[in-house]
């Protein structure tokens, strides 16, 4: 490793029952970068997310976060180490309020530590951590313009706001790397525009590295510095966005012959 990357994957791959879903992925994402992962349906984009977040254990290769090997760790540990994600099909805690969703994200932060027995007995530490968590959660919600909605049930939010809430919740876990799985899916052009601004804002404000999956090429080209184009589980192209759009292989994969 000559240069230090925030996320680096080496020959990452997985196969299910002999079928190679993803293979030979080498991503190199630098700190503070906005990186896109694009490709047609079934190309294995979400599978890569699942590999990096520990849902699946890779069958080949390794991946490093900030130089630390996280291959084979479970989901909780990987999150603690600093990778947070959103889901393609939104996975909020539907029966909980908006603010509680974010507070679940804050659960493991050192500053809010409080053991269950302290909570059961309502020791002062319980109230301290609870108040601090609440304030922190409100700050996060404010960034996404969700403060007014904080006491609504998550399932009652409109679609666009649910997407935002998912990002807020992921941010609450204080990650180094944020994985966004189709954040603009189902949004109208105005919302998409707004989201792009928010994503940039997050990167700047939190000094965040962001890896995102997106179908909307406009979104990706307007936002990302670099992309990886996937097809059939292998990477077709790594590099700058502009060039990707003119790469013949990429065009072939997207439009067909």
């Amino acid at each position, binding site marked *: 490793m000559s240069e230090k990357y925030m996320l680096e994957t080496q020959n990452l791959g997985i196969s299910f029952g002999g079928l190679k879903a993803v293979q030979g992925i080498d991503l190199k994402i630098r700190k503070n970068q906005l990186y896109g992962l694009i490709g047609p349906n079934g190309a294995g984009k979400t599978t890569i997310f699942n590999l990096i977040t520990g849902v699946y254990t890779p069958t080949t290769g390794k991946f490093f976060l900030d130089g630390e090997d996280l291959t084979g760790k479970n989901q909780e540990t990987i999150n603690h180490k600093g990778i947070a994600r959103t889901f393609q099909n939104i996975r909020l805690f539907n*029966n*909980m309020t908006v603010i509680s969703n974010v507070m679940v994200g804050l659960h493991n932060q050192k500053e809010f530590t409080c053991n269950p027995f302290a909570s059961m007995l309502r020791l002062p530490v319980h109230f301290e951590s609870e108040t601090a968590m609440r304030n922190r959660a409100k700050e996060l919600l404010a960034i996404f313009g969700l403060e007014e*909605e904080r006491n609504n049930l998550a399932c009652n939010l409109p679609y666009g706001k649910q997407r935002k809430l998912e990002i807020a919740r992921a941010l609450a876990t204080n990650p180094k790397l944020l994985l966004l799985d189709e954040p603009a899916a189902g949004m109208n052009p105005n919302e998409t525009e707004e989201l792009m601004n928010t994503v940039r804002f997050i990167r700047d404000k939190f000094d965040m590295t962001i890896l995102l999956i997106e179908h909307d090429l406009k979104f990706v080209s307007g936002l990302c510095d670099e992309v990886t184009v996937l097809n059939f589980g292998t990477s077709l192209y790594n590099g700058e966005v502009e060039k990707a759009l003119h790469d013949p292989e990429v065009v072939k994969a997207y439009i067909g012959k």
Partner: protein
Amino acid sequence: MAGYFKNVKNSFKLKNYIAYIVITAFLIVSASLALTGYMNRSTQNLLTQIAYSIILAVSLNLVVGFLGELSLGHAGFMCVGAYLGCFLANYLHTIIPSRLLVLVISMIVGGLIAAVFGFIIGLPALRLKGDYLAIVTLAFGEIVRTIFKNQKIFGGALGLSTKKYGSDLFIVAFIVVLLMLVFIQNLVKSKHGRAITAIRDNEIAAKAMGINVTYYKLFVFVVSAFFAGIAGVIYGHYATPVLYSFFSYNYSIEILVMVVLGSMGSINGSIIAAALITYINFQLTTKLSGDLAALKYLIYALILITIVIYNNAPGLASVKERLSIKPLLKKVFGRFIKRTNDPAKQKDDEADWDRIPTKIEMDAILSLDIKPDTTYAPDKREEK
């Protein structure tokens, strides 16, 4: 110190404390009646039964309603507590003269041993879901009682003879109910409760948020089993002998019925349902004697079916609305209760835990879904 009380005050909400207030008031009234001799023994017995039913229902609700795992073996934990706690009590009676002290010690020990069993049965819960876990807990309950039945030291088929506490047992039992409510409500309304509900709502997302699912699942099973064990010790001090046949899966199901009728995830609901069902059962048992006894289950079954169909049938929703007393109550009491329904204007603490759902989607719990990491285990990692 002042800050602490301010915190307590800020988080104070009548609604969360209504159960404490009602039970405490009820306890004071009935205890004074009982101690002055104005309450007959069968009423005191009924109250003891209600008390341990509440403990069982609320502790099961923690597993079913909050963690979202179906457990059909709650009577098994009770059985462990009853046998081992009372076995210890029998010994303690020979060295400690105070019956209260003996009861308290045996409750704690019985609860702790049951908690160990809770840990053991929590382990499969990490791997299994839905019906599969339900049948494993049922199996656990049956295994436990079969084992106790065959132990000579616990009286074998005759059951373990215990020393009864006396009819004022209900006072102790209700104090235990109060303590349990404090512990469980506080647990549920804390970051840990949030984590537990998050696991129920979406386990995958909870894991992705870094929630230690293993820890919390085991923790919930342990806490729940602990209180079930205590309920068992109370039972053993109420009726002698402690007999294995009482703790069959039918009893586990009866506890589950209390939880479901009281709405899953609602602690107050569990309390009401437990009291109500125990009361109905008590009345049916004592009123229908002799030839009428066979009618008991018939009536009980009809009550059960009617309540469930009335509460849940989608087709009856309109009828239910028409018969509901809610609008009437609103008319009468509405002016006394100031309540903003605009969530944006509510006080923070108010909205947060109000919204623990009273009905959760059990489809997800009772489904064949199992965790992706156990189903679609990828092929073995290639060793270099």
